[in-house]
């Protein structure tokens, strides 16, 4: 199989690439055939019937039903075939196998965030080899488009909805991810890598380690881990750290202070209150805000909540 990069196409990295490439090459060859045909006839006529002294146009039929119908029907048959092949290939690209490994993708100006089933979030897409992977994508702001040229797949990530695409990587290595839908200043900087691990166990090991990155931080640096979680786990979408109002109260300068609650009373922002607010957000609602926060029970580990608390403490 021709899997390396060629004149036209990059190397093939996924199971669907071969099928797409076959059609690409077929259409290219059909195009070259017709192009050469047209060009040769064109140049031959231009040379043969060039105007020169003593030469005049010779009468010939100004229409020919049979000929014209022929060159209507032949292209028609060809394009029907191309349509059919393209459609069949597209159905494959659109339909992920049921047992696919699911990774959630969030596009935002101007980076991609990949969330794994255990809650790990990474800027690059890590996947096991030879296994179907389904991406469930959405966007936080404008339309982005997740494009992996070596896998021959692309799908827009839109705000307010989930789009899906899938692939099955064939060989370990690094592959390119682009944002293909124009999204502003750093559109061309919105690139990432697919890292296809050598085996499923290696991928699992990476995932476990990525999930435990807090363990490697010294206690005085724990807040940095908290900051990373704040950015990646969706806290940022509702809670600012600069005092700006959002869907939820800002984190700036609340540590150690009383917060008024809906229905009267107040609560002191300290370890237990924060922990409760993450695990059971509806228990105490800060006055002026709607009870809209989803629970993070089971989504954040104890250690991670501790790191977030450490981060909150730094936001004086």
């Amino acid at each position, binding site marked *: 199989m021709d899997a390396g990069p060629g004149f036209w196409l990059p190397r093939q990295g996924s199971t669907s690439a071969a099928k797409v490439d076959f059609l690409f090459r077929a259409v290219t060859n059909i195009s070259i055939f017709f192009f050469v045909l047209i060009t040769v006839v064109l140049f031959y006529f231009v040379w043969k019937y060039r105007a020169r002294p003593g030469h005049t146009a010779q009468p010939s039929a100004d229409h020919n039903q049979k000929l014209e119908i022929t060159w209507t029907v032949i292209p028609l048959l060809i394009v029907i075939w191309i349509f059919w092949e393209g459609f069949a290939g597209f159905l494959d690209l659109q339909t992920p196998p049921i047992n696919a490994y699911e990774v959630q993708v969030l596009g935002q100006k101007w980076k991609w965030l990949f969330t794994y089933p255990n809650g790990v979030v990474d800027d690059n897409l890590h996947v096991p080899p030879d296994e179907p992977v389904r991406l469930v994508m*959405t966007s936080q702001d404008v339309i982005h488009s997740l494009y992996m040229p070596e896998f021959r797949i692309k799908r827009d990530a839109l705000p*307010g*909805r*989930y*789009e899906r695409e899938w692939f099955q990587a064939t060989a370990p290595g690094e592959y390119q991810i682009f944002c293909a839908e124009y999204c502003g200043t750093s559109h061309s900087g919105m690139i990432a890598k697919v890292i296809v691990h050598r085996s499923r166990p290696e991928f699992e090991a990476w995932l476990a380690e990525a999930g435990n990155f807090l363990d490697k931080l010294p206690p005085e640096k724990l807040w940095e881990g908290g900051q990373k979680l704040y950015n990646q786990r969706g806290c940022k979408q509702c809670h600012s750290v600069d005092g700006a109002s959002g*869907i939820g109260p800002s984190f700036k300068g609340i540590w150690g202070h009383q917060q008024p609650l809906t229905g009267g009373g107040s609560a002191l922002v300290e370890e237990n209150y924060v922990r409760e607010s993450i695990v059971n957000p509806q228990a105490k609602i800060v006055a002026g805000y*709607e009870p809209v926060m989803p629970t993070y029970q089971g989504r954040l580990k104890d250690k991670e909540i501790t790191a977030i608390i450490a981060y909150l403490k730094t936001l004086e």
Partner: protein
Amino acid sequence: MSQPAHRQVGHVVPLPVLFGVLGTLLVMTYATVAITYYDFGRLNLWIALGIAVFKASLVLLFFMHLKYDKPFNAMVIIVSMALVMLLIAITLTDTKQYEPNRIPGYAPSIKTNPQ
């Protein structure tokens, strides 16, 4: 109706026709209001649209002289309406298809949206 004697272009619509059309339009308006007090399920919308199409045809044919006009002018209007139908039909089919992908009630910038 005999042709008017003087040189002129265009068709003169008789007054009874004009008033008859207005009468029908008013009756139909009453009907379309009255119909909302009965529940025909999904049919209500189609009945309302049917009445509207009927009323619109009356206006086009008589008030706008299309009945007496060159057929090509009628075709222009029919084609434009057909294109509107095409736009609606295809976008509606498509949005229906991808509706499950959308997050219900998603509108983060609308403050009054109930959560």
